């Protein structure tokens, strides 16, 4: 899956949880008021379910922007450690 496709796949999840109309490179935890601590947990759980993956606790705290989340997904879905 390309990065562009990943943005598109995550967008409906982000729209539902973070209530944002668009999920792109401009989106990050600090520019999105709804992306608070509880919604961070909800967002990652929904992404795990969608892609049937498990996001490690060692990584979860770094995934604070759309770019970082998509980059992480891109790597893990390609089988990168």
């Amino acid at each position: 899956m390309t990065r562009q496709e990943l943005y598109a796949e995550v967008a409906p999840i982000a729209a539902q949880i973070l209530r944002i109309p668009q999920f792109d490179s401009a989106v990050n935890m600090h520019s999105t008021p709804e992306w608070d601590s509880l919604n961070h947990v909800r967002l990652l759980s929904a992404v795990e379910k969608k892609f049937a993956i498990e996001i490690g606790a060692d990584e979860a705290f770094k995934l604070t922007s759309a770019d970082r989340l998509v980059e992480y997904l891109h790597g893990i879905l390609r089988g990168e450690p």
Partner: protein
Amino acid sequence: MNVETLPLLPHQKSNCKVELPYANYHELLKAKVTEAPSREFLIFPETDRHYTYQQFYEISLAASEWLRSEVRDFGTIGIIFRNTPEFLAIYFGAIARGITVVPINHDLAPAEIRFIVENSDCEAVFYDPNFEAKVASLKPQMGMAFHPFADVANLPPVDVHKTEASLPRVEPSTRLVIIYTSGTTGNPKGVVLSHMNFILDGIAIADWFELTPATRSICVLPLFHNNGLVISTTTTLCAGGSIVFVDPKASLRSFWALVDRYGATFTSVMPSILAALLMLPFQGKRGQIKGIICGGQLLPLSLAEKFEERFGAPIFEGFGSTEASSYSSFNRFPPERRKLGSVGVVLPICDMKVVDDEDNELPDGTEGELCIRGPNCAIGYHRLPELNAKKFRDGWYHSGDYGLRDAEGNYYFRGRKDDLIIKGGEKIYPAEIENVLSQHPNVSESAAIGVDDPILGQ
């Protein structure tokens, strides 16, 4: 120096004998650098940046040199950063020059940030470029400089001795920070705290919990609040320990993994964080954390018991407020000495008492307003003389919080005076109702509020 020899405000005097070992916060940092320059001091897992005491001291001096070229000594600056090295570099750099720091919540709307910057008389604002969009809307409206600061690595190295020699003499009573707190109505109010306030509160809490250079704190609260600045930062610094800083919004799922990876032994949280952690899987090591400080809201006893049973981490409740630097009382340490449900006994730097509506001191077991006095109490509210006269009167800070003391000297927090529900003359604390609701297994959080009633009042 003996605190009694300092020019104290009436509400900063107490019956305690208190020694102030450092004249200012920079002296505190320098003393710890001298003790163990190569000891690890600050850790930022998100960007994998680690700093020893010596390394960060030099960074703070470099920041101080930059500030010297932009702001006058003893001026005031606003800072808008996340929990990053850049926040702490500007903070330590500024206070070395006697500059008052106004930490600003980056989640506030531009209009709210503008109010704080103008109300506190900031001469300049330093900010994380990630907040450029927010700051950009303020710049044209405001007559001061805005300085983006992306990375401490961009600060030019300095000659340590030359910069140290350029630092002004900063007194214990010099303003250190103005921390804005939200009220129930109107604009936020700025609480002015001095170097003496933070140092004494930090030392008292470090001693209370027997923190040592081996202590490693994990800070999951924002640095723009006094809790992050005093409990995590100042208290651990006073012990010569090290601090792991995590973004508060991203920390919940990773909390125990970070505690394990960095060997954290001490932290400070709000009750809502404990409730959230209880809902998440636990893969950590029971008993790694030796103390969790908890305050800011009422902690339901059932929540504390469930948390301790599952994680093996003792919770220490305390009573505090920004106006008293942070905490003024704590449950006794070690854990077996605690009285659960209590906010503990008063710290040995201040006095507390309970008063009625006419300011008469009440006997043990009687509920009233909790008051504090001592050198941890703030200089006052910034530019709010009427509020200062109301809250800092008769040599005491009147907290607006209700509670009582038992015969053993343990204090119990009942709730905010403003939140009290008075039904037909009967006083009901929202927490009394919330505590019952929270015992139900399907209730994670609850809130009780008074509703107007034509007969009973509420």
